[in-house]
């Protein structure tokens, strides 16, 4: 299956710290995330997680990429739903049927801008 690609623009106030929340719609999903931040400060995270990305001043220098590889081991689940939020606001909602792709690769591109 092709990679699921999403992009969004996130507007934040000056000095506001961006916090990324990744959550699952079902139990029984495991995932690995690489957060490609501006500069050499990449981060890794597992499963459902909360990560501080930095202030908008820093983030607006370059786009931020989130690479997620997920897989479901829940025999009762029919889909894989993953929600990406910045400061409590949804930026990407991913959903795919397990029958279509049991181990989706997702790339989220976020562009931060100052309000």
């Amino acid at each position, binding site marked *: 299956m092709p990679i699921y690609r999403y992009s969004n623009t996130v507007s934040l106030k000056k000095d506001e710290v961006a916090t990324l929340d990744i959550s699952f719609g079902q139990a029984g999903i495991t995932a690995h995330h*690489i957060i490609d931040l501006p500069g050499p400060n990449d981060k890794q995270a597992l499963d459902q997680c909360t990560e501080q990305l930095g202030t908008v001043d820093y983030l607006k220098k370059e786009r931020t990429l989130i690479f997620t590889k*997920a897989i479901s*081991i829940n025999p009762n689940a029919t889909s894989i739903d993953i929600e990406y939020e910045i400061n409590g606001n949804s930026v990407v909602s991913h959903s795919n049927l397990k029958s279509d792709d049991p181990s989706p690769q997702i790339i989220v591109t976020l562009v931060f801008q100052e309000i």
Partner: protein
Amino acid sequence: MIMKKIILILTTLTSMQVVAQDISEKVSKLKAPSSPASIVIGNQPATISKPKSWQALEASLYSNYVNQSGSFIVPNDYAIEFSPYWSSKNSSSLSIKDFAAPSISQTLLQNLSFSVSSTKNYLIKDSVKTDALGFGVRTMLWQGEKKEINVLLKNLLSIQEKVALQNFIDKLSFDISEQLAKDSVNDPKTTANSKKKFIKVFIEKLQTDKAFYSGEAPNFFSTTPYDKWVETIRKGLVKKLPVGKTDYSDEVSDLLDIYTQIDKDAIGLENMIKDRQGFKLEFATALALNFPTNKTDFSYVPKVSVWLTPSFQPFQNNYWEFLGVLRYTRLNSDFYKNYAIDKNYFDTTLDYGTRVVYKWDKFSFELELVGRHSKTILEKTKDANGVITEKSKTDNDFQYIMNFNYRISDVIILSYNFGSQFKPTFDSSNALISLATLNFGIGGPKKNDVK
């Protein structure tokens, strides 16, 4: 001649199939009840509705139990089962380890389900069909063994390592593809050679950073030599990548799924989670509610049942399976005196039994032994000294069933049942079973389906 005999035997056995279906329903297998609410009222619904959320439960109840004028109705042959844990939003926050190998309290919560079943054909005296509802609860009190949990967690770790490995390699191919795209803007010739260039840079990077990538999935690379695996990927890329593109990340992602076999591993783990081995202890209870006049303002609770089902399948041993059952049923004597067809009833019955299954290649053998102790207290008196004297009638019965199966092909099973059932109330000569059947895996008709 031999062939003709075989065909004759098969034809004879096949003609017994319809009868066998009917009898085999009576020879119910010893097992944990899948829907206690249905069993307690003797209902056999074609399907059990399983709403996945509170909203879906509400909709199911409203559409089946409430009529157009807003009054309560009893639907015929309807069953619903609801698992509150999996319907709550909090269930998605469960950690992957707790999901794969839950603790005792988590096991109890995750397996807890409530069921409701209804029928309009609950027979009372004079063969009158009445409305009845069954309410049931079931859960798992214990499941799995330490050895199994260790293997389960090891397999989970192995999958998590492969997930991380693939994510890093997918990022690598994305980065190289982006660089190729940038290069092709400056030099259009790059696109023509992009496939060759991509493979060269990609494989070189995998070789240079061997320590990093192999360190991400030590379990996988303990059985698969890293260099050999990279060479397999290289050959795959040469064969599968189209020419004239700059972004190969989709193709690489697809190939990695194949070369790590991650989907196959996940299915294996799903099957382990779905069908846990080792020791299991299931609990179920249900009560029947009958409306003898078919009016909801007059009802009886004719029966309450409790099941305790321990089972044991030795881990990583598919030859043996052991199952036991303890089933306690209490009947309401007021109901049975006034409304039941069967006047030869007992207030309480305790069934206790075991089933042993042995499977080997195409052959399987099952032996089921069940005892039944029934008791009714006829009179209870208390003398002046406070000593209680009880006068009761009791009965003991025993059922055994042996079942031999031979799988002729994937869809045809030759089966032979032999044994003795519990004494039927009205015709005790009908307790012996000796039945050969030929089962086709195409969903055979029931006796009532044949007109």
